[in-house]
């Protein structure tokens, strides 16, 4: 018996339509990937261009700002040197003008109860607002009520004595700045 062998590989037949279909798919995939790459690169190039423009503008603005800032700082320093004395004098005058004697008298009227009599008072227009006064009170209770009201204002009681008329007299001073009114 004779054994016949066929070399199938040598005569392998390729189906034309199937090959064309697969090749077309491959070409399409290549085209799609290439298009995507081109689109990505194009978009990125546009972005890069915009960023470059923006960064250039930003740089120019920063440098312009720094130059103007430097100039303004120099001008401010020169003005401060030449005008600060005049400004300080004007501010000091304003500070003294707003010092109110009436407001301090109002305050004293408010805190003094009927048993208290202010015999002498000295008010000075200064930032600390020190007020010295001599008061007489009908009772110690009323005097201490006054002390209590004045305690937050750095009250200093210089002296206190009881008179023959059963009155209590005290010399005291306290500070009342404009901020505390």
């Amino acid at each position, binding site marked *: 018996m004779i054994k016949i062998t066929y070399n199938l590989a040598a005569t392998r037949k*390729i189906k034309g339509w199937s090959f064309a279909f697969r090749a077309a798919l491959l070409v399409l995939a*290549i085209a799609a*990937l*290439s298009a995507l790459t081109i689109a990505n690169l194009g978009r990125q190039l546009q972005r890069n261009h915009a960023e470059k423009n923006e960064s250039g503008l930003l740089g120019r603005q920063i440098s312009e700002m720094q130059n103007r*800032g430097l100039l303004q700082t120099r001008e401010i320093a020169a*003005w401060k040197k030449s005008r600060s004395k*005049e400004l300080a004098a004007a501010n000091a005058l304003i500070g003294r003008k707003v010092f109110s004697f*009436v407001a301090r008298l109002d305050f004293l009227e408010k805190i003094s109860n009927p048993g208290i009599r202010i015999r002498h008072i000295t008010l000075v227009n200064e930032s600390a607002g020190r007020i010295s006064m001599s008061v007489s009170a009908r009772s110690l209770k009323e005097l201490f009520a006054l002390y209590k009201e004045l305690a937050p204002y750095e009250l200093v009681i210089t002296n206190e004595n009881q008179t023959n008329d059963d009155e209590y007299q005290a010399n005291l001073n306290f500070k009342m700045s404009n901020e505390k009114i």
Partner: protein
Amino acid sequence: MKKYKIAVTTMLALFAMSASGCLLSFAYMSIRDLSRQSRLDRQASFQLQEKEFQKLSAEHEEWKKLPEKLQAFHHDHIIGMEDFAVFRRDLNFCLAANRLKATNISSQFSRRQGKIRKVLLSFALEGTYSDVKKFIFAMEKKPKMNFFERMQLNGSAEMVKGNCKMEAYIGE
């Protein structure tokens, strides 16, 4: 057969190239996105600088306007040399209007400092407490630069006796 092989190999090579190109383009975009953060940081720092600059500009503008403001302050609040007599009449009128007896009204002119000269007025007064207070109030509310420097008040019965020192600033 050989033709098909060449075509397949070429197409596969092209596919591999386009796929790797596409991947690389995505990678490039991601890297650029990461560098975008540094751009944002730069922008934030620019905005901060801009704010500081605006603050400086506002301060600069204030200093620029200062001479004008100081001039306005002088004009509105410093008593003119020719107005000092008016001020003195005003003081007398205010004392009289509040039924206060004022004595020893004296004015002491000090040396000129810059464009301003200080005048120290001192006087004694006598009247009821409410009248004294009304007088102080009337003088305090005047817009010109005159104010009480020191005041001593002594209360006896219904009357109050006081010594006042006032400062007035006159311009030249």
